């Protein structure tokens, strides 16, 4: 299937969901916005690769009575509905965990109801004073550290803890990380055989240090902790996505965030690296590096996976992404910062290849 087919199918799907849900929402007192940024741009490709768990649409709207903005999640797909219900159970359980010392603040749930075959969830929209990446780096650092410490506060170590979380949260140990890494490696090598020695080197390191992965395991970690999944209002961090929480290595969430910041704010990435070097043990530093390597391989494999569904500029862009993230992987493996030249070259290329729709979707995302 080429880009046009995938995009057309996605647009049809979104429109059919909007058509179906609009009258239901009106009876419940909500109005949909005319423009829906969360379904635009490259969303169709991202969805095509990531929605093994199910289809769902995220829309923006307004409470007709109060005029307050809301976020609406809709799914008619069984797996998509399960994901929404799972997210709800995760929030509820997090509040009850006696071994979690600090929990995230979550936007208020305003509505959660089944309409025929559709599940509709409406949440309070958290209006930010400014976007995370527009804040001074020192502020970004403080917020990020605070969020990571909140995650580290939930450490499921005993039989009782495990029993409490096992039906709601996924748990992952070193064997799980290694098995998944092998799949990433296979995917990447089908695209670029030359990456194999680098990926082998990473695998050997992960295998050698698997005990370290397990030592810092069983912590609550948000596997997609990046600015578009949280918002800050009045100094409080609101977590938007609860479906990406699991109990695994404590640095998995750090790793995703720091890899993201390698591109968006390298100063923050370096500050977090320095913080771990200054305040945490050598084992923890190693654990962070291992998780960064694992998550970088995941992102490379992800973009390799998009290539068969993309064409034209998007295919060129995602190919550039594969090589950019492979460069980051090499740098992290060698404990060296990514060269500014590599980053700038990639950003220039990315901006020249991004569609107007995607540029619009990116506005306000981070």
């Amino acid at each position, binding site marked *: 299937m080429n880009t046009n087919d995938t995009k057309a199918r996605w647009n049809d799907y979104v429109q059919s969901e909007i058509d179906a849900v609009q009258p239901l929402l009106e009876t419940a007192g909500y109005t949909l916005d005319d423009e829906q940024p969360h379904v635009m741009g490259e969303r169709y490709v991202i969805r095509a690769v990531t929605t093994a768990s199910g289809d769902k649409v995220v829309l923006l709207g307004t409470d007709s009575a109060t005029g307050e903005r809301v976020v609406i999640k809709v799914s008619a797909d069984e797996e998509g509905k399960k994901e929404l219900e799972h997210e709800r159970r995760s929030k509820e359980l997090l509040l009850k965990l006696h071994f979690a010392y600090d929990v995230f603040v979550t936007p208020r749930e305003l509505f959660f109801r089944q309409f025929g075959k559709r599940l509709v969830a409406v949440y309070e929209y958290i209006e930010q004073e400014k976007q995370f990446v527009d804040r001074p780096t020192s502020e970004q*650092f403080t917020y990020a550290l605070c969020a990571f410490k909140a995650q580290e506060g939930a450490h499921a170590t005993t*039989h009782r803890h495990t029993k409490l979380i096992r039906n709601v949260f996924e748990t992952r140990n070193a064997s799980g990380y290694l098995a998944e890494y092998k799949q990433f490696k296979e995917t990447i090598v089908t695209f670029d055989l030359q990456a194999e020695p680098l990926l082998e080197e990473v695998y050997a390191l992960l295998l050698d240090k698997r*005990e370290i992965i397990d030592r810092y395991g069983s912590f609550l970690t948000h596997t997609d902790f990046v600015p578009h999944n949280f918002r800050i209002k009045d100094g409080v961090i609101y977590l938007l996505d609860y479906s990406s929480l699991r109990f695994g290595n404590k640095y998995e969430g750090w790793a995703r965030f720091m890899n993201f910041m390698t591109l968006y704010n390298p100063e923050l990435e370096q500050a977090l690296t320095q*913080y771990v070097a200054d305040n945490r043990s050598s084992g923890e530093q190693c654990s962070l590096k291992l998780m960064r390597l694992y998550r970088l391989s995941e992102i490379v494999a992800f973009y390799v996976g998009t290539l068969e569904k993309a064409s034209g500029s998007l295919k060129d862009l995602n190919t550039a992404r594969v090589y950019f993230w492979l460069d980051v992987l090499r740098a992290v493996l060698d404990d060296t910062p990514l060269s500014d030249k590599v980053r700038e070259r990639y950003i220039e290329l990315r901006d020249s290849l991004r569609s107007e729709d995607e540029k619009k979707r990116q506005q306000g995302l981070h």
Partner: protein
Amino acid sequence: MNILICTPLYPPDVENTAQYVQELARRLAGAHSVAVLTYGALPEPTEGVVLYGVKKEQSALVRIWRYTGKLFALQKNADVVVAINGASVELPLVLTAPFARARIILNDVDERALAVHRKNALLGALHALARARARVVCALSETPPAKPEILPFSPPPVAEQAQYEASWKAHLEHLETLFI
């Protein structure tokens, strides 16, 4: 001197108690032979310290029983046993103390565990029994503060670090007097 530290928490646990015990073990290891008995299969390696871990991923009864067995065996070679408060250490301590030749110091450093003892009569009674079995009880107020963090966008916490070091020096001097 052979010192055995028995603790419910040790890194990778993140609680302040875990950090305190690791720091205590590391600092004592400069002058003594130090072993730590804790819960957790993979305690964080600490220079100069021998670590013994009892798996946490089993039912409470099984893990406390195993901990008790390990404590019984290890305390034979110890001159001093420093026990960190908390029911999962106090119960093994109460059971094994009558057979110990070592000097037992109960260190009431875990504030959270003390709060639980105050609310739960049974655990409160266990704590009282552990205090009775110990030769000395070291109070929470005598323990050093948490280690000051070095933050990238803030000036180095020079004064706090000096205070932290001084506090540890005083704490260790006090403990040394209790060891004899």
